[in-house]
């Protein structure tokens, strides 16, 4: 695999390739999502990239109506709530992500434990393409 630094820039670049990548410590074997350069368990910096299946379940969520500027600019928020959540991957680690395919107007019907799978969101910000981690119920 191409050598990429264990940074958010690399993480997002992989997302652009529709891949959810974490880092795995070559010394103690622990898996980190999001990826990081230094292992918090053994304090060594000997990571390798590892791809996650993208399958998981929803462990916490919310439907947001009062949104930050970046979401308001995408037409989300007050009259169009969106779901953000914490997803636990089949491999164990958890990550925060947008959650798609749920009824954000009836959020009490969204269930913790719902199976979800990776779906990367793409939007243009000026000349740049921006990729956002999301999962679909």
């Amino acid at each position, binding site marked *: 695999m191409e050598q990429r630094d264990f940074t958010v820039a690399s993480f997002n670049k992989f997302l652009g390739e529709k891949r959810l990548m974490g880092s795995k410590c070559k010394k103690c074997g622990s898996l980190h999502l999001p990826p990081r350069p230094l292992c918090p368990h053994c304090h060594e910096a000997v990571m390798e990239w590892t791809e996650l299946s993208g399958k998981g379940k929803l462990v916490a969520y*919310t439907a947001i109506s009062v949104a930050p500027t970046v*979401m308001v600019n995408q037409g989300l928020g007050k009259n169009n709530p969106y779901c*953000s*959540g*914490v997803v636990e991957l089949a491999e164990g680690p*958890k990550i925060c992500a947008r959650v798609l395919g749920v009824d954000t107007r009836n959020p009490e019907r969204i269930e913790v434990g719902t199976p979800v799978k990776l779906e990367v969101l793409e939007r243009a910000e000026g000349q740049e393409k921006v990729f956002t981690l999301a999962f679909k119920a």
Partner: protein
Amino acid sequence: MAKTGKLGRGVALVGAGVSKFGSFKDKTSRDLYVEAFLDMKASVDKGFDPRDIQTIYVGCFSGDLFESQGHLAPIVTDWVGLVPRPATRVEDACASGGVALRQGVLAIASGLYDVALVSGVEKMTNLPTERVTDTLAAASDVLYEASAGFTFPGLYAAIATAHMAKYGTKVEHFMQVGIKNHNNGALNPKGQFNRSIKDIMLARQKKCQDQGQPVPDYKSEMDFLKDAAANPVVAWPMRLFDCSPITDGAACALLVAEDIARSFTDRPLYIIGSGQASDYALHGRPDITCIKASQIASKEAYQMAGVTPKDIQLAEVHDCFTIAEIVATEDLGFFAPGVGPKAVAEGVTARDGAKPINTSGGLKSKGHPVGASGVAQAVEIFKQLRGEAGPRQVPNKNLRLGLTHNVGATGGTSVIHVYERR
């Protein structure tokens, strides 16, 4: 690893005051700070010469973004006439004030200083709500939490849905926290909201009547809180009345070495326990229904103080959102995990309950000028333990032990103090 878990010497709290909390168009951080300083000064029974203050800690989350003013510590120090004393700004998001307090405790316990001013200030209302939301979101993990669309109410709402799923907690429990804290805050003249939710409900009905509009038929405060027009969703299940407001305010407290406390007052309080811990971003935690940093920090504070959660007679906890108070009362060991909702429903945490929580009105009703909140909590404990809380004084006449619990972000920082009246 060497760890004694003890303070090098005793630390006393001899004065504490706040500015009025609210929305003040024509006041800046330094004006609010002066107001809190004067309130603190007036609370020192035997008076003191401000020039005796040797060091200043100022909790401030983001003067930089809220007011385009960084480096606030020397400015407020100048405004209260204390240049050239060392002035240090402390930033740990909404725990900035509590950590500033802890820095003062450590500075005195170390023996370096005898008199420390610990304080906090935030001027938040200059910006429109969207920009305030953006600014507060900067206290989250911007790369991996905010990037998912999470706002602060959103992150606590996620904790709420996890708590609901694990323990069967209902939205009504969150509403009960809000009703309780507004009942307390209605009795706090320094608070932002001086009205109970019932009063706010009646005012809404009257307004509709006066304007010739249909009057909503609320049978109770709960009906009012379930009305989406009166109490809109911010981040489900957190609605407007589940969220602390945007607030301008400041708080100051005077800490001195135990051996000189009696020259300031015959009724000092003693800070006998202090604990602080950090935690991962929300997704890095094994359990999202609790805040482990609060569990660790409180254990440290209890051990230092030689007390147990049962011994604590009242507490000011970090209710930035109603779910946060429920989780706090569990993390502090007041109630078992999952029992916090039942405690609020049964009135255990009410002002006349067995374990009064947030008698000041909490962040919810008193207001939450983020950098000041941790110090303002100490101000309430100062007043309650000395029997000076006026109409909101708890009925227990034998108050001896109080606690403050101040959280930064969703628990990335938690800082706890235990106070004793001897």
